[in-house]
């Protein structure tokens, strides 16, 4: 049995992080707090390194917003440890409110009132008390997060040809020929049967410009063209391994997107 529960706060405004920490210290004395994370990428790293029992995630944060961070944490979470309970904190975000109204996840509105925080803490303590076995808890978390709609892309025109620059030459790659797009730091790798290119665009900006019927996001850093997938094999951990037509490598779909590969 681990000692006491531990929580991680993700909040880019130091004053607000300190205020939430003080509020939690007052109404949950047994809770140990990890150092607060100032942005989405930091909270992902800290969560995976320290495996807290609860995460308080601000929705609007630099680099990775709170929702994306929650997705990423659940995607990379080891399958034999119960995932953290996620509480979203937001100043005013209609889209977040809509998403959570229907969900079992809790959310807090800033400024966080003492009474509301206490109610949230009571709920968290209850859930931590009767936590189910890790795999089931992870499935629940996946199902809940999947129900949260991604923000709609605004008026981005569909891409038909990818223009990939390599020093002085620009290669024109029709999207039909692309097998998959993989995020690589600030770039995206564009892989066709013959070769691969790098484009200076984030996967997040690229995704709304692709046809979702044909291009499936199977991992937060990976978008595959469905008709090039030969087979999908489910692993015990919940991940799915994909083999492609015309490429030797195997791709990994996370458990977040495993539902795409259920038999008909």
């Amino acid at each position, binding site marked *: 049995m681990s000692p006491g529960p531990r929580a991680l706060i993700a909040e880019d*405004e130091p*004053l*607000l992080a*300190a205020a939430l920490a003080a509020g939690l210290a007052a109404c949950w004395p047994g809770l140990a707090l990890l150092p607060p994370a100032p942005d989405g990428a930091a909270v992902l790293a800290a969560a995976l390194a320290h495996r807290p029992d609860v995460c308080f995630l601000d929705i609007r944060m*630099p680099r990775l917003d709170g929702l994306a961070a929650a997705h990423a944490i659940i995607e990379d979470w080891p399958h034999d440890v119960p995932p953290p309970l996620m509480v979203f904190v937001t*100043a005013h975000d209609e889209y977040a409110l809509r998403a959570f109204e229907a969900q079992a996840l809790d959310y807090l*509105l800033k400024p966080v009132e003492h009474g509301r925080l206490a109610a949230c803490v009571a709920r968290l303590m209850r859930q931590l008390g009767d936590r189910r076995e890790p795999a089931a808890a992870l499935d629940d978390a996946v199902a809940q997060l999947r129900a949260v709609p991604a923000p709609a892309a605004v008026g981005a025109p569909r891409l038909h040809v990818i223009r990939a620059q390599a020093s002085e030459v620009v290669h024109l790659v029709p999207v039909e020929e692309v097998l998959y797009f993989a995020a690589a730091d600030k770039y995206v790798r564009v892989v066709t049967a013959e070769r691969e290119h790098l484009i200076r665009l984030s996967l997040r900006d690229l995704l709304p*410009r692709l046809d979702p019927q044909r291009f499936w996001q199977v991992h937060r850093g990976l978008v595959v063209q469905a008709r090039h997938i030969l087979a999908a094999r489910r692993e015990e951990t919940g991940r799915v391994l994909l083999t492609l037509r015309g490429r030797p490598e195997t791709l990994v779909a996370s458990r977040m997107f495993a539902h795409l590969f259920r038999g008909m």
Partner: protein
Amino acid sequence: MRLRTWLPPGAARGLGRRLLLALALAPPTAWLAQAVLPGAAGYGTALTRSLAISLCAWAAVDLGRFLLRGSLGAAPPHYWPPPRGAALLLGLGLPAGVLAGIALGELLAGPSAVAGGAGAVAAFALAVAGAMTVVFYSRGRQEALARQVEAARLAALKAQLDPHMLFNTLATLRALIATDPPRATAMLDRLVGFLRATLGASRAETHSLAAERAWIEDYLALMQIRLGARLTARWDIPTALEPVQLPALLLQPAVENAIRHGIEPKPEGGRIEISARREGGELLIRVRDTGVGLPAAAQDRFGLVQLRERLRLLHGSAASVALAAAGDAEGGALVTLRLPMALPVAPSAP
């Protein structure tokens, strides 16, 4: 009720109003007709004819442009067609309506016996109906423009009171009250200044560049308390330009975008620079940040679309907004606004 489904929503009231007006103008027109076209029958006959022509001309032009809005190219908000459609409407629709009205009048009141015959009646009726159409046309356009300006101003005001900004500020204030009361007081003062200027701007059309700066300084001070050392600001506004008038809180979307999309998403933060200078008869304002730079869909940012619309309505093509990468080593985005200089009337010496 079928007719209502063919009409764009909200059009029926204006149509009815213009029909009543057209009918109300029929009696004086009938009187005028008797005066200019001698030999006409009694006033009752002339009035019947005049009413018939008014009704038909209204139906052809006013009802016609709504029902045929697709082929005429008539678009909201006022549904007056562009030049080609307008020529069609006035060249064919109006005469057809007038002729139909004359025919209807003859049917109801018997053949006319005025000097000059049917040609004179048609010419007179066409002149009156044409004049009324022109009056309705210019009024319709003016009202629509005024409504658009008002809508743009309200949209700007709504954006200024961004709930995300407001509640985060209140949350910070709540935290400071317990831990640092003097700073909480200072922050509250800034919030009061910010809200007062924002609400004031909902009433005033324009204010001076100095007032705009004071308001932005309050806004930036609030953001600085929240973001800490991550946000710095630099100003470059010559004293001579301070009294220049500009639409109230015009720079708000540019400043907010710089923070929200440029500096807030950057873990190490950045600087915002606001400068103004005069270039000939133009006022040139630059809002620059050293944030994360521009994503692909940056031109569609809500605030900028709105800013562009607001300037277009106020100044037409004389003003412009451009968003570009800052283009130096520090990166970030640069918004450049150009608008005609509007100096206040110099107070005359006593």
